[in-house]
């Protein structure tokens, strides 16, 4: 069984991972979904990039996840927020609706961005997942994970358009930067609260 045959399955799994990151209230499970998402991205991206370059993206993704895991005891409370079940369902609903729109508009988008349909769909699913996460949350941690998801989606599409080493390297730096910035802002917020108390 080659990668082209399992690609649609990868896209479905990417949808599941993205939805988990958006809706799960348990930060540990959300991080597990993030790690799984990076593995799925690696598998999908190997169809357009050399394995060594794709592996860099996986390693960096897991590095960022490990970074967040290392401070989990400090930051997990910032993930478990005041969102009611209805709010969570709304986010999930909006995301699924957006995916339907993306799926329907796929042929049109493919005219603009001429890459393999499965790769494009995978990228757009993550892009829309990240966009919803970023747009519907005020929490720094959720925004950071949203941006990481968004950039992952973009990287999938852009890798198919321009497989450049420098762009990949710079995108890796940007990903690490977003992870570190999110962590920095969450920890700074914690320290301020401690000072106030």
């Amino acid at each position, binding site marked *: 069984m080659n990668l082209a045959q399992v690609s649609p399955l990868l896209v479905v799994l990417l949808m599941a991972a993205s939805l988990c990151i958006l809706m799960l209230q348990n930060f540990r499970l959300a991080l597990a979904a993030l790690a799984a998402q990076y593995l799925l991205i690696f598998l999908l991206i190997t169809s357009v990039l050399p394995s060594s370059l794709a592996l860099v993206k996986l390693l960096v993704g897991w590095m960022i996840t490990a970074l967040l895991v290392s401070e989990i005891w400090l930051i997990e409370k910032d993930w478990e927020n005041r969102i009611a079940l209805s709010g969570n369902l709304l986010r999930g609903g909006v995301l699924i609706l957006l995916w339907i729109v993306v799926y329907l508009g796929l042929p049109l988008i493919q005219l603009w961005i001429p890459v393999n349909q499965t790769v494009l769909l995978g990228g757009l699913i993550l892009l829309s997942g990240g966009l919803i996460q970023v747009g519907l949350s005020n929490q720094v941690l959720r925004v950071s994970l949203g*941006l990481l998801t968004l950039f992952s989606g973009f990287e999938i599409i*852009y890798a198919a358009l321009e497989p450049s*080493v*420098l762009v990949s*390297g*710079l995108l890796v730096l940007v990903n690490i*930067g977003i992870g570190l910035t999110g962590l*920095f802002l969450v920890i700074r917020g914690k320290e*301020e609260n401690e000072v*106030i108390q």
Partner: protein
Amino acid sequence: MNAPLIWAGLPILFGVVVWLLKKYPRIQLLAGCGLFVLFALLAIFLPIENPVGTQRAGFIINSSLNILGRQFVLTFAEQPMLMLLFGFSAFWMLGLFSISQARRLVSYGLVILGLLTASLMVQPFLYAALIIEAAVLISVPLLAEPAAHNSRGLVRFIIFLSLAVPFTLLAGWAANLAEANPANGMFQIRAAILLALGFSFMLGVFPLFTWMPMLSEETHPYISGFLLNLLSVVILFLGVRFLNTYGWLRTMAGVPNALQIAGGFMVLSAGLWAGFDRKLIRLPAYLNVFQNGLALVALSLRGASPLILFSALLIPRLIMTGYLCLALSVLERKQVLGKGAFADQPFAAVMVLVSIFSMSGFPLLAGFPSMLLLIERLGQQAPAILLLVALGLIALIGAGIRHMISMVTPAAEPDTQSLFTEPASSVLLNIYFTAGILVCLIIGLFPSRFMLAAEEIVRAFQNWQ
């Protein structure tokens, strides 16, 4: 030795070294300011690709540097632009001698300026978006105020600038494709739309500028003012470079109109927001959007040298924003932002007002000559956009009058505690503000000298007709 290493590599390296000196704030500040001045002077006196020194002991500064198969190129023609950026930063850093709270700007400023300069050098310049994003992420610790309990503006700043990256990278790819297939208009339209989206996020085109006033309110005015202006100017230069390289984009039907509409609405909305917002601390953000809008309108004009007009708008903007942010920092420190400012800090209050009126093109002030030129050309070419710009200008003048009334009004309850604990306004600061007002008047009264400088700054963009 090569130019990208000197003006991008060394500032980043020295920025890190200066950051390590944080235990010695005085030395850190002196070293940082000295380096900014040094790089500005090097931009004036060290010619690229020309022999320096004697024939025996001379050397030549190469214009390009290869990294991972990509080139960073800085030519002799781009040196005036570098001089503007480093000179502006050096001028801004001098103000740090009187604002201890913002001193961390000196080390971060070197790194950020190095990265932004690198973004102007990289070829193909679609990579610039990623380097700008790196500069944005590095600036987060600088913008995260230790005492701020709210970082919504900062988070939005990261989101909006990050959203620009995918669009700009895709625009670069689409532009290359459009250039390879000049007969296919679809490719050109696609590149133009992607580029417009990318630059809209980066420049804060209406209505995407909400993060700017929030950021100004959350962070120290001197830090946010520096970053907003430096970022905007570099992004504008990038846009000019893009249009200069891709001639088909510049001459494409609809592009000048799009620039005019975007710019006109930016000027109008920023003017109105400034007029209705009571918080003086948010003003630098509105002025930044206002000036970005004017720059876009200037770029859209046909005929004799719209680029000179574009750079003529930049010089008074950078000088007056520097003084405005310094004056706001003084007023904020003394807790007299608004009522009672005039009685407590007359020099700083006058500086704020002069800056606002100068940027709204008040006669005899620094912004007047370039504003007069812009209005004259707009009247000939786009009267509808002139109406938007005029309304924006009137609203900004209204904001100036409103803040003037507020500053002249005595404070209801003078904060006696702060009067006793805070030191009196320093003589040095008063001299600095007086010099600022004089500079503003000199530029307004004798604009010919600075018009020559404006011409030099855009010398690099030779394809522009």
